[in-house]
């Protein structure tokens, strides 16, 4: 594919298509709408399906139905729309249905500041739906990476049979960059049953990687899928043992692959005395701030979370052992900072912004200077 | 007898629907609340009992009159 100018949101649509997504259900909401608009054009060209649903809940429902019938699926929303989707994100988690949910974050709570950037949905991405559940959350910082991370999100959804949240923001979603995208990427195929019904197939029997090989509908397996806690047959069970094991496996299928899933972009860490932690659109400003600080002779490192959840516990802890302080640039009242504080073995400082504008490099630089002074 | 009954008593919940809608009072509930055939001789093989049993506990098959040629 030749280089062309495109938005982060369009790159997500391109990534979805190349990763094999053939079904999108959605509802219009700024600043995510371009994803739906792009896929409305692109999907029918490849025989896929785009449907605009009556609300955000239905958008989740329709993609989950399509996923169960064998399609790779994606939906996208923002702010209030993501709040509405939470019910069925939990369903996808419980019933282990592959789905990618793109959240182009805007200022909240509630209607908040539509179209204005924020990264205030971090903890919602992890814990938005009720109950103990596992989830994967990824965030890109550029248009090119929006494409790549979308492919990764689709592959993770399929491989782990889990909802994956692509937690982007208005900054990256509406950013325009000249990018050259590959026509082909590595695609994880839909998992398939390894034994027949006659051989005693049970849809929720986990494979060696703890992920079940659930048959698609219409393949003769007569499976039952429910949001109730179920045993390996897929049917509900009122047993404490089944409940415990189901919830435990749901977490462990992802946590045991953590080393592979967790992706942290690190720069200037060899000589760093302090470092800035950030993700998504904010990382673009943080990077500039780190470069500027280094020009002034400060030994500052750059840590960018591409995988937000599972959180980079081990990596942050290890890095923090050699640091005098960590600065967390949170485009919110302070969310990532709590995760960093939980694992860091050095002082942690928060640089928070929640006024509907993005960080200026000077703001982060000023916080770097303060941190350096505090930990001297 | 015009009919043959198959009762799956493990399914019967004793709701009494079959008893009430039987036009000939063939059926009744026993002391444990399960259906039994009380007056088989009155059965006209209409099948109303099976038709409305919500629990698939009672099945009625018509007995075809024996053909004369067989004798």
């Amino acid at each position, binding site marked *: 594919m030749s280089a062309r100018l495109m938005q982060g949101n369009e790159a997500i649509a391109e990534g979805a298509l190349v990763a094999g997504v053939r079904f999108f259900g959605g509802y219009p909401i700024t600043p995510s709408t371009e994803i739906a608009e792009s896929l409305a054009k692109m999907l029918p060209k490849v025989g896929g399906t785009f*449907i605009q649903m009556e609300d955000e809940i*239905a958008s989740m429902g329709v993609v989950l139905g399509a996923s*169960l*019938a064998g399609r790779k699926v994606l939906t996208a929303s923002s702010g209030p729309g993501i709040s509405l989707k939470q019910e069925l994100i939990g369903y996808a988690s419980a019933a282990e249905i592959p789905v990618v949910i793109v959240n182009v974050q805007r200022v909240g709570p509630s209607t908040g500041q539509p179209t204005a950037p924020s990264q205030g949905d971090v903890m919602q991405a992890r814990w938005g739906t009720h109950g103990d559940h596992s989830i994967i959350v990824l965030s890109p910082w550029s248009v090119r990476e929006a494409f790549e991370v979308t492919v990764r999100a689709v592959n993770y959804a399929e491989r782990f049979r889990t909802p994956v949240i692509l937690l982007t923001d208005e900054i990256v979603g509406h950013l325009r960059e000249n990018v050259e995208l590959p026509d082909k990427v590595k695609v994880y195929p839909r998992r398939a049953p390894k034994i027949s019904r006659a051989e005693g197939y049970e849809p929720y029997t986990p494979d060696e990687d703890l992920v079940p090989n659930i048959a698609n509908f*219409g393949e003769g397996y007569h*499976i039952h899928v429910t949001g109730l806690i179920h045993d390996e047959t897929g049917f509900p069970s009122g047993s404490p043992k089944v409940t415990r094991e189901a919830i435990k496996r749901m977490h462990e299928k992802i946590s045991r692959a953590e080393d592979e899933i967790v992706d942290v972009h690190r720069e200037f860490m060899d000589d760093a005395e302090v470092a800035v932690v950030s993700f998504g659109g904010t990382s673009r400003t943080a990077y500039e701030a780190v470069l500027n600080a280094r020009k002034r002779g400060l030994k500052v490192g750059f840590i960018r979370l591409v995988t937000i959840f599972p959180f980079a516990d081990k990596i942050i802890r290890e890095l923090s052992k050699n640091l005098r302080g960590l600065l967390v640039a949170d485009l919110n009242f302070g969310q990532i900072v709590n995760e960093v504080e939980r694992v860091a073995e050095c002082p942690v400082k928060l640089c928070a912004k929640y006024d509907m504008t993005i960080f200026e490099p000077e703001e982060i630089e000023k916080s770097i200077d303060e941190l350096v002074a505090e930990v001297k | 007898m015009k009919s043959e009954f198959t009762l799956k008593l493990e399914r019967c919940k004793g709701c009494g629907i079959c008893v009430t809608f039987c036009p000939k009072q063939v059926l009744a509930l026993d002391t444990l609340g399960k259906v039994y055939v009380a007056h088989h001789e009155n059965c006209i093989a209409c099948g109303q009992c099976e038709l409305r049993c919500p629990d698939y506990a009672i099945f009625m098959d018509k007995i075809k009159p024996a053909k004369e040629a067989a004798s």
Partner: protein
Amino acid sequence: MRSYEKFFRRNRLPHRWFPGCGNGIVMKAIVQAIEKNPAFTQDNTVIVSGIGCSSRASGYMDFDTLHTAHGRAIPFATGIKLARPELNVVVITGDGDCTAIGGNHFIHGCRRNVDLTVVLFNNNIYGMTGGQASPMTPLGKKATTAPYGSVDRPFDACKLAEAAGATYVARSTAFHVQHLVKTIEDGLSNRGFSFIEALVQCPTAYGRRNKMGDPAKMMAWMRDNAVMKTAWDKLPDDKKIGEKFPIGLFYRAQEQDYDAAYQQVIDIAGGAAK
């Protein structure tokens, strides 16, 4: 064993509906209707349900079955149908599931004319949670949340479906079993959104509170008050009184279903085969 019993997961029977509950009658009517349609097999039919007493049915039926979240059966079913149009998709729902929490999905499913057959088990109450008023609880009837009688005007789900664009709309009852089977059978053969309201008795959470007597008395009430549509239309307004209500086919139309409509989009866009 009756031939339709092959459509049940017999190891899961007896079902757990209360004694005299009409849900079992309608569930049997659905599989009998499926049995009569040679295009429907156990391998190409998907049963989708919401949450509530009626929605337990999916677990008892031997097909690919999907027990979704409360009110959400129709969006899930829409996704299945559009992803694999060759599958037959039947939705089982209840009055609360379909017309309260799922009301929006219901009317939009009708509007799109997605090729689904939706069977609403109308027991006039939230049974599973113990008898709260639903949008289909008749005026004046008692519920735990309407202890002095319901003042909320109820939906006529059939009128709602017709107005919203469903292409097959009919009502029957747990008493009128043969009619019910035929009604569902016709709904299954309609290519488009088919809606069947099946009145069922809930002796435990509705009938008892409203002094309607035992299960058989509640079914006798259906027998005595249901009027076939053709007869109903001839009744003068002053005879459409008391608790009388019409059953039968209310609406039927030939309209393009959603999958066929979207296939045109694919053709215009120059799309490859799926």
